[in-house]
């Protein structure tokens, strides 16, 4: 779902301005866009993020070749993964100050769900780090993010190759379910260890008259995927139809 939200929610890391909700291809819309300083900053940001996720991708490949197996590759890319995924928190700030025309709420939701998975599940429950499900979502995220950040970079420079647009609005069809599966399996794998250790949980009695069961919370998170994932997925499919068919029409008339 963090994977799904990534592509669905963000309307454009400063993609020239116009709301993605109406389709970036809506050429007749007046684009106000961020100023030149903000644009320069956003280009740098998106380039750095593209590079970061490429580093993670390369790291995965190298580790696979060195080890000869795809198990426990998490450890080889743990640091850049944490760094660049956490860095995405800046995107919330970008929306808040208005240089990116996305909803702060939607972007927060998307980034926080990723950060949650990285820190509150994978990092916190060490036993889960050697699970194959981790690789599943890391690969899904890596491919998605490389395409997404390069998409924004090119959009900001007003030179978007059709291939990138196509990739962004097509690969999700496979990458979303892949990412969601990886995430759910990882959370599920973490459950027994959370329960055993009483991780992040507080029980009564205590002087603040409050209790929190992290195990139950994780189960609720898993359940929340049921209503949320289909919505995001079908939203992207709808966007795909709108944006990719519009571009083809445009091409026909050129």
């Amino acid at each position, binding site marked *: 779902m963090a994977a799904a939200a990534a592509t669905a929610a963000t309307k454009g890391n400063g993609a020239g301005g116009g709301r993605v909700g109406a389709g970036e291809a809506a050429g007749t819309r007046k684009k106000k866009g961020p100023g030149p300083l903000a644009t320069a900053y956003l280009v740098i940001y998106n380039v750095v993020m593209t590079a970061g996720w490429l580093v993670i991708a390369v790291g995965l490949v190298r580790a696979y070749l060195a080890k000869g197996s795809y198990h426990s590759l998490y450890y080889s890319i743990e640091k850049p993964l944490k760094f660049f995924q956490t860095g995405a928190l800046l995107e919330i700030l970008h929306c808040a100050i208005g240089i990116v025309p996305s909803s702060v709420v939607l972007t927060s939701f998307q980034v926080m769900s990723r950060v949650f998975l990285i820190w509150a599940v994978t990092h916190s429950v060490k036993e889960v780090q050697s699970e194959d499900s981790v690789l599943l979502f890391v690969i899904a995220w890596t491919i998605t993010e490389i395409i997404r950040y390069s998409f924004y970079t090119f959009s900001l420079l007003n030179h978007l190759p059709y291939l990138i647009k196509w990739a962004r609005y097509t690969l999700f069809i496979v990458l979303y379910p892949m990412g969601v599966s990886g995430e759910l399996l990882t959370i599920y794998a973490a459950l027994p260890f959370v329960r055993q250790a009483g991780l992040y949980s507080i029980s*009564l*009695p*205590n*002087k*603040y*008259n*409050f*209790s929190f069961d992290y195990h139950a919370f994780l189960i609720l998170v898993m359940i929340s995927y049921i209503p949320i994932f289909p919505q995001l997925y079908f939203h992207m499919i709808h966007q795909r139809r709108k944006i990719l068919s519009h571009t083809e029409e445009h091409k026909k008339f050129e």
Partner: protein
Amino acid sequence: MDDLSHGFSKYPGLNGFPRPAPPKTTKKPKKAVLFFEVEILDAKTREKLCFLDKVEPQATIAEIKNLFTKTHPQWYPARQSLRLDPKGKSLKDEDVLQKLPVGTTATLYFRDLGAQISWVTVFLTEYAGPLFIYLLFYFRVPFIYGHKYDFTSSRHTVVHLACTCHSLHYVKRLLETLFVHRFSHGTMPLRNIFKNCTYYWGFAAWMAYYINHPLYTPPTYGAQQVKLALAIFVICQLGNFSIHMALRDLRPAGSKTRKIPYPTKNPFTWLFLLVSCPNYTYEVGSWIGFAIMTQCLPVALFSLVGFTQMTIWAKGKHRSYLKEFRDYPPLRMPIIPFLL
């Protein structure tokens, strides 16, 4: 235009009686009664939904909405938004047709606001819930706590006090909804009732669970803390009620007038000197008092969420006051004196 040669207009005048025949056209028409035509288009599809002819120039938007409902009964007036521009603001019910910037053929755009529900209904439902739900926890009905605690009573005085305060608070809200408040709008979208009830009922259950729990821990500073917090709670409840009464007196029954509220003889209303929405200030104060009294984190969180929402509302209200009244007192802040 329409032929005025008919003896009677097809549409009765606004008093329901047939209109007498307008004077025959002469070289110098004395007082030509010019009727308007109103066409109503869908704001999104621009489809022509309705055409009204022979509309009185003094007809209000409310009357036009009623006429529109006749042809489209599923769109009762409360769910109609009519505007001059498809993307513009909704016209008010009291707006008069001839005072609008339209020609004699007026084009109005219609947007369906969705199923509507009355404010009173929403308020009563969302407030009755917490009242009832809290008591379920207070009386420890089965299946909430362990079976050995069924229908037992807490041994802490503060728990009984908290139940009284919480219950009286919601009884006050219910009574105010029925007898005090004067609503500007009759209705709100139906989905709001689900959203609002989830919020109020959910938090009430969450708070009540801990306060009435067999393992509840009373406040660290004992009776002193409880007494102080209770005083804060009671004072703020009286304050909140005073403001509601003052606001009610600002507006005569059935009207929608808006005036600047000012302090009255009641000392609780003197907060109007410093704040635009002292009702919200007192409400936050009440919940802070309740949080201190029960020393319960969920109550503090509820207060925080409520404070956030009320601040948004207060800022909006403050902005409208500033826009509407040139002479609005400059010292006032939206919700917290001097600060916010």
